[in-house]
């Protein structure tokens, strides 16, 4: 009985340690860089993914929460990259909010911000 139990515990320990070794490093990023300060309207809002993602909703909002017009360059198809073109912006703080469906079925959301100086 004790031998059986120690075998089960050993197998569990091997599984746990093997998984820890298999962990990946985090890589996330966007254009513009989150928190960056720009002097002119960015030509493109750009996001790159490591696995195809369907961006179902994306919006650019100013500090008051008002939505700014933006033309989507990527549709609803699964894609490694997403880009959209904002119209000229006034100085101020802006946030890009997005939601999407990952290829493994996860619904995801995220946001990043930038500031446009005078």
């Amino acid at each position: 009985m004790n031998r059986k139990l120690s075998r089960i515990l050993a197998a569990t320990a091997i599984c746990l340690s093997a998984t820890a070794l298999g962990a990946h490093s985090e890589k996330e990023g966007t254009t513009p860089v989150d928190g960056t300060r720009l002097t002119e309207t960015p030509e493109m809002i750009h996001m790159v993914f490591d696995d195809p993602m369907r961006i179902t909703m994306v919006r650019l909002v100013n500090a008051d929460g008002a939505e700014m017009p933006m033309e989507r360059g990527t549709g609803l198809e699964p894609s490694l990259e997403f880009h959209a073109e904002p119209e000229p912006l006034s100085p101020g703080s802006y946030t890009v909010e997005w939601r999407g469906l990952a290829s493994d079925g996860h619904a995801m959301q995220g946001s990043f911000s930038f500031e446009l100086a005078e």
Partner: protein
Amino acid sequence: MLAALTSADAVTWLSISVKALAYAATLSAIGSVLVLVALRELSEGGRAALRLTANLSALAAALFTALRLPVRASFLMGGTWDGATDPMILGMVADSPLGVSVAVRLVGLALILAVLWRARAGLVLALIGACMASASFALRGHALSEPQMVLGALITLHILCLAFWVGAFAPLARAARRDPPARAGVLAHEFGRRALLAVGLVFLSGVITLGLLGAAKPSALSSPYGQMFAVKLVLFVGVLALAAFNKLTLTPALLAAAPNAGARLRRSIGVEAGLVAGILITTAALTTLSAPPSTVDGAQTTLIAPQNGPAHQTFGDAS
């Protein structure tokens, strides 16, 4: 953890509620079938009541499971009601692993309805349905990570064993209320013997699954997922303590026809069911608001742009 909960929007809360109700009803439907098969000491009246419980639970589970599709579609469109009814987004969700999982579960739940057919074939069909409904939990989310087959088998086993436990609450409480104490004691004793194996497998399959997902490490406690999981574990320990009390104290008291033993067992089962409800709500919240620490940057899709900086990214309706 609290930050994740307080920043959740209305659709996320709705998603957690629907998911928790779907969990509870599905476990009750699966568990009722398993108890019918595994506990021979059930009285005829107990069997009839359990068949009814299985059916009502299966119908409720089908409703809440199907509701997950429009709730997910709404989330994807920014939490709007328009999103919940958008045919294109609904189609996208139906084509995703969540859609497959929902379809398999609905077929499984439909088969469970055969439990009303009082023939051996009815019970066999219901048992197949129970296995399908359990397996549906392994067809989406983190269960699709590698090693997929191992994770799938572990999650299915975890659900089957947990369901057996949940499914026994109602018949045990009924027996404690209506059957003679000695008869109820024999049933509780039989359940206690079977539950030992089930509880062991729930724990072992859960621990190995967590390990394979890379979340079984002390540093995970710094993440919302780890913190919510710790809450779940505390509740689980409470359930274990109550189950041990039932087995070691209340079941012998019932067998000896001690006064008030039935009423005490019913109260204990009530508290146990409350703790399990807490576990299900916590699970629904943790799979909706967070992800195992290693999968956030590994198995999941992440934003990558080597020349750019980090962006805030979270899971909205992640199971």
